[in-house]
């Protein structure tokens, strides 16, 4: 390569006063700027609101679910969703929404239960109602629910499954597992990725070469078959909580490579940046340079990369559980719920079994919006 690729600035009769296009953005910090640019991205803001909402559901699922997700209403097996009504069957309007209870008859031809609204059983929907007892996070007993019907009534917003359990409440409980697995998996990936990527980018040489090969190897293995292989090997006698962490680790096993790549390439390009050289020249210690100069300058890229890899984790869990080799009942996750939808004949008769899919897609879509908005906000020049 030519020596004169760079332009020597000395000895030049320069008129250049060297102004930069600093305007109103002058006085704001990096994070404030990023946040301002993020807010301009409407879809991303929308996504963020949805995501916050979904995580609230997940954290307080006992409070938000109107029914107990484990209780089997054996007289209401495979019942369709109840309609929320404001007008009763005689045409009277009511400001308070309500549902009619189900009554079932057995269809003698298909031997299936057929459900009809039972106009004699009217259950009013109420906010902050008292429902069946639960233990918040497994510790704090309570019975207050965000909304629901009075005790004795039943509310199946998304119908029931083949054991007569409320699908809506199961989806809300499932969000706790499905959403947290993505988050925990991402934190594991982040830790491994930052550490290995950082060492590799800083030290270079043999370690870097080795890590590059490992990343290349892991990226060329198709993730789903490998995940399948590893999670099928989790011992069947493991407790649900161990399986949960096992799956998380399996998902992070491939996930860290993205973070590592971002961190490594940032370190490599920053290592020779002038402000880093200046810090070295000023006698700053390496640790100080890394923590004070390097990490702040690329942390936004890492956040973007992490946000964009959460959907992959969530989908990984969903896919594995859907196939029956991830989490298993009685654990409730969106993938476990979707396993029932594997049988297309069942889905055709009971289409509400597909409702967990709406939540999966909504989550992934919103996370992608947020990640995209963050990416644009972190680096306005890398459109």
């Amino acid at each position, binding site marked *: 390569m030519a020596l004169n690729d760079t332009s020597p600035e000395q000895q030049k009769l320069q008129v250049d006063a060297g102004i930069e296009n600093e305007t109103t953005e002058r006085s704001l910090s990096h994070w404030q700027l990023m946040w301002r640019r993020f807010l301009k991205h409407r879809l991303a803001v929308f996504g963020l609101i949805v995501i916050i909402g979904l995580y609230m559901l997940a954290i307080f699922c006992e409070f938000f679910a109107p029914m107990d997700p484990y209780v089997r209403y054996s007289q209401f097996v495979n019942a369709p969703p109840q309609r929320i009504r404001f007008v009763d069957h005689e045409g009277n309007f009511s400001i308070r929404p309500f549902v009619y209870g189900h009554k079932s008859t057995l269809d003698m031809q298909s031997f299936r239960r057929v459900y009809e609204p039972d106009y004699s059983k009217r259950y009013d929907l109420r906010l902050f109602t008292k429902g069946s007892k639960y233990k918040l996070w497994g510790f704090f007993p309570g019975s207050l629910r965000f909304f629901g019907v009075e005790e004795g009534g039943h509310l199946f917003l998304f119908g029931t499954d083949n054991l007569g359990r409320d699908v809506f409440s199961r989806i809300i409980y499932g969000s706790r597992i499905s959403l947290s697995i993505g988050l925990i998996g991402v934190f594991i990936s982040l830790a491994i990725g930052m550490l290995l990527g950082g060492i590799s980018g800083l030290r270079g040489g043999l370690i870097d070469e080795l890590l590059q090969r490992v990343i290349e190897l892991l990226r060329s293995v198709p993730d789903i078959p490998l995940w399948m292989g590893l999670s099928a090997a989790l011992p069947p006698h493991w407790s649900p909580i161990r399986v949960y962490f096992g799956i998380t680790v399996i998902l992070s096993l491939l996930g860290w490579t993205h973070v590592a790549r971002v961190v490594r390439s940032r370190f490599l390009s920053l290592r020779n940046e002038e402000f880093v050289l200046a810090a070295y020249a000023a006698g700053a210690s390496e640790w100080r340079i890394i923590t004070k100069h390097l990490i702040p300058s690329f942390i936004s890229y890492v956040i973007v990369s992490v946000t964009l890899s959460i959907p992959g984790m969530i989908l990984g869990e969903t896919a594995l559980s859907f*196939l029956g080799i991830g989490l298993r009942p009685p654990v409730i996750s969106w993938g476990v719920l979707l396993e029932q939808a594997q049988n297309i004949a069942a889905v055709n008769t009971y289409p509400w079994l597909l409702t967990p899919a709406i939540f999966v897609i909504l989550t992934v879509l919103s996370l992608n919006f947020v990640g995209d908005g963050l990416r644009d906000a972190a680096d306005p020049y890398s459109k």
Partner: protein
Amino acid sequence: MANYLTKRLIYMLITLFGISIISFTVIQLPPGDYLTSYITELQASGTVVDEAQIASLRQRYGLDKPIYVQYFKWITGIFRGDFGRSFEWNESVRVLISERLPMTIAISLLTLVFTYVLAIPIGIYSAVRQYSFGDYLAIFIGFIGISIPGFLLALVLMFAFYHMFGISIGGLFSAAFEDAPWSWAKFKDLVDHLWVPMIVVGMSGTAGLIRTMRATTLDELGKDYVKMARSKGLPEWKVILKHPVRVAINPIVSTVGWELPRIVSGTTIVAVVLSLPITGPLLLQALLSQDMYLAGSFIMMLSVLTVIGTLISDILLAVIDPRIRLE
């Protein structure tokens, strides 16, 4: 170029070695070994197994040796075409793989082509007409595409077709052709079925590629050489296609190798939902019944497939990019 390719080849060999270790690990992970499963299987079918027979089998498979010897026996066996036995099918793994793998490759490649043929023009259009209605539409479809996982899309499509038209869109052949020998009519039947997996698996890849193509083209559009090309008096379409698009295609081609694992992954699970007679359902079944030689070999062959794909994309990149070719 020779240097570059030698380097890529060496990397490929290292990767292949790594893949074989990963696959072997998957085989070894479940408790017990191949033989315990085999014996259980034999006993279940009522065969009486005597101790001497077990010992000889144990020796034959090297199960009494340390793990690295077992690995060595296994890997050298593969070079001779011996992938081990599937106790569930009572068939050599090689036979099972060679029944399923060609169709997996065919579907993956078709999906790959479909993805690129669709994504590149849309990406270019989106970049050149940035912020137009068509661009927003492409961005929106792109978001939807990457957010709906293939297996859910397959599920929804299956349901929709079954519900509305009462037809099943699963499988690769109609019942009439399932076991028929190859003929023109069977081929046509295959084509009729193939579009579903192609769209379902290709959807997310296409969406991702549109985004990449759009972004890289936008990047290139702003560069000085585009102004330079315009300053020569070239017609606008020629400026766009010969200059920024031609440069933007390079990184897209170089990611063919990364696209392939995604597609193979996608086909695996979509094949389960659509019950396609390819590797996916068989792999799942093998895993569920702990038929580990079969499962491990599948994982290995699918990975090898993608590694070869990566190598091809590296070669392609060297051919079309002089900066790499002349390195």
